[in-house]
């Protein structure tokens, strides 16, 4: 973000030269605001949405479960009041649904209320907060949405979910009558990218999407979206050949990146240097418990994945509400969880474990007992496929960047 001022300008630039002298690529840059350490509060404003995406965990969409301003106000007040409990330096309000922009007036009201209360109470979050949105993009150009974005421009982050090629996108992201939503989303992409040039999108991949991974990511880059966060679903959604298909797709993507030299400006989270090493430490990489999710009724969850609509097999796992606050004891398992306490021996001893993610919500939903401490490992083979593809990619990229002609290229900040 930039703030124009005479003779001085402050901006968040993210290109530079690596200390080794090798040019930093888009894959080298860190994008998490505040190093990923901000407190994230997910406000589940509505269970309504224009779409009926086939992989969406929110089944049973409806228009009557909507958060009231009173619930939102109580939540804001609670968070600002409990300074001993919430000591994080920064705060991210993560508005979601359903489709959050269906509730833009409520969002506007909540945002104004928070800003004012944080200022008047002298809370440190006034100096470090963000409003974040995960939207299907259909309402992005709507005047009220645009007015809100302009009003809070230096504090908003908007991610539009577009799954890739029209074919892949329309496989899953459909209207209730089965029509694909690609056209209604893609028309807003240019406006979005003009306003947020460094914006990223999140691509969720399940079994049916696998054959389209490479083309979809390339397509998104061609639309101008430079940074793609892609992940496979944690559910048991895979066939015997899923890992092979994923690996082939990632190898093809690797060749495209190196051959067409897209690596300076474009990145995809499938490829990262740390992938495939042993786990360096016994930590928890899932933010459940550190973040907070609030549903329309003001009930608190450790993550949206523990709300009723997100679960297939288990009842919701509540940890409090906006009136009584958080039950500290119900939060303890999430704060204590680490790699060793939840993983089977083969995961703990795995030589290529780095980058193999887990989801405590999936753990809970698919475990033999009602516990978050039994890791759901359905993605194991896909992680191994990703590791193999990563080794191929980094080998090709490093050879390319080490080539004499590459060294002589001028720097491009």
């Amino acid at each position, binding site marked *: 973000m930039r703030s124009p001022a005479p003779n001085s300008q402050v901006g968040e630039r993210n290109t530079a030269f690596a200390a080794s002298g090798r040019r930093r690529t888009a894959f080298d840059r860190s994008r998490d605001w505040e190093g990923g350490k901000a407190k994230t509060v997910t406000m589940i404003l509505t269970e309504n949405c224009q779409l009926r995406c086939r992989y969406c965990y929110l089944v049973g969409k409806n228009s009557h479960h909507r958060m009231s301003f009173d619930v939102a106000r109580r939540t804001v007040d609670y968070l600002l009041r409990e300074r*001993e409990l*919430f000591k994080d330096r920064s705060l991210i309000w993560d508005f979601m649904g359903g489709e959050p922009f269906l509730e833009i007036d409520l969002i506007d009201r909540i945002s104004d209320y928070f800003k004012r209360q944080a200022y008047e109470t002298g809370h440190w979050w006034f100096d470090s907060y963000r409003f974040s949105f995960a939207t299907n993009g259909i309402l992005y150009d709507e005047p009220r949405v645009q007015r809100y974005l302009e009003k809070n421009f230096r504090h908003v982050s908007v991610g539009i979910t577009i799954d890739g090629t029209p074919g892949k996108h329309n496989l899953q992201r459909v209207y209730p009558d089965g029509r694909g939503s690609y056209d209604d989303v893609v028309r807003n992409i240019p406006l979005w990218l003009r306003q947020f040039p460094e914006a990223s999108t999140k691509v969720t991949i399940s079994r049916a999407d696998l054959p389209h991974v490479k083309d979809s990511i390339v397509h998104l880059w061609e639309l101008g979206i430079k940074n793609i966060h892609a992940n496979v679903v944690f559910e048991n959604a895979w066939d015997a050949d899923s890992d092979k298909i994923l690996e082939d797709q990632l190898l093809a993507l690797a060749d495209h990146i190196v051959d067409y030299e897209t690596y300076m400006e474009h990145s995809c989270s499938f490829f990262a240097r740390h992938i495939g090493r042993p786990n360096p*430490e016994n930590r*928890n990489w899932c933010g459940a418990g550190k973040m907070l999710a609030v549903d329309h009724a003001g009930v608190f969850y450790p993550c949206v994945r523990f709300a009723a609509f997100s679960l297939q097999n288990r009842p919701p796992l509540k940890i409090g509400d906006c009136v009584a606050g958080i039950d500290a*004891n*119900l939060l303890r*398992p999430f704060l204590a*969880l680490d790699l060793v306490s939840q993983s089977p021996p083969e995961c703990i001893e795995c030589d290529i474990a780095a980058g193999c993610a887990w989801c405590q919500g999936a753990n809970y939903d698919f475990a*033999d007992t009602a516990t978050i401490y*039994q890791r759901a490992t359905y993605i194991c083979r896909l992680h191994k496929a990703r590791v193999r593809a990563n080794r191929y990619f980094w080998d090709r990229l490093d050879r390319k960047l080490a080539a004499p002609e590459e060294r002589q290229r001028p720097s491009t900040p």
Partner: protein
Amino acid sequence: MTPSPPARADAWNRVGLDLQQLIVLTDAAAVSFCHYRNRGARPTAASRMPLRRLSRVVALANKRKLQLQFVLGAEPLPAAHERQIDQAPHVKIAPLALARRYRDAVIVLDGNDLARPDAIRQARARNLIVRLEKSQISHAADLLIPYLNAARRINVVPLDVEQYGHADVEEYRRQLQALETPVAAACAAGDAAELNVLSDRLSLGRMNNCGAGVHHLTCAPDGQLYICPGFCYGDKSAAVGNVEEGFEIRNAQLLGLDHAPICRTCDAFHCKRCVYLNAKATRELNTPSWQQCVLAHHERNASRSLRDALARLGVDVSRLMTPPELPYLDPLTALPGAAAAPRVRAAAAPAPPPSDREILLKILKVQEEILAELKKKKGDRS
């Protein structure tokens, strides 16, 4: 809740299983002897474990070389039951009402029992379990002190721990502090009872926990098996099997120390790591509540003080463990990445009162300042 898993007859033989004991509730109204509550009615023929089943349980225990602990209700067992029980080595756990009849039993006392005149007589040279209500903690020391020279061992079980607030925890700490001197004096005199919350930590170099589901199982009167008696009185789907068909404990690894991230590196070795309380307060078998952790740390800190008190009295403490000083009361806050955990700070030691000299100097200093000010004003006027 998840339906009970299918029982496995070969579970008793599983490699790595370390079952040593079988707790047998002889009656649905058997006395509660730990953190759980059994609000059942008085024992009846219908609530009692049938003789045939009792016989099978004893045979099973003998076959599997399990030590038996029979938990009794408020009424004596029928003679036939007593004969059956006597066929195997065992321990009885009984309420105060049965103390005279079963002279070798571990006696369970509620807080109200402690004040009864006959309780101390029955407690002489015996192992006691004392269950204290939250409302009794404020005078726990007064209730327990008379038993320090009577009983052989006192296991204090504070009830409703998950409902303790910070003030309750602080009161608990004060009561532990109040017990240090009488316990030390009794030890120095050579006839002190072991007091779990104060003395156990001094003799432990590693974790010594309840072991529910690991070292022992519980058999209810209907033959269902549970991890611990506390689970017998809740959802029946908590059963892990039965004496006829065997058992299966899903996610059994969560009962062990390796899969308990808060406990794994903790040195409150005397803590019971009560899985019943864990499940009740945090919904996870491997995660204790902040109250359990903080109380256990107050206890270990009190053990340190007791050791110092014993040393001052000339007792040889060279063989006693020395819990090191710790900057926290809740071990969760010491885990990496646990910054979000609500913090419970150790209560600061009260500052010593100022000496007479210090008070006098303060007065003089104030007087000097006043005098100087007065002189200045006088000078200004002139």
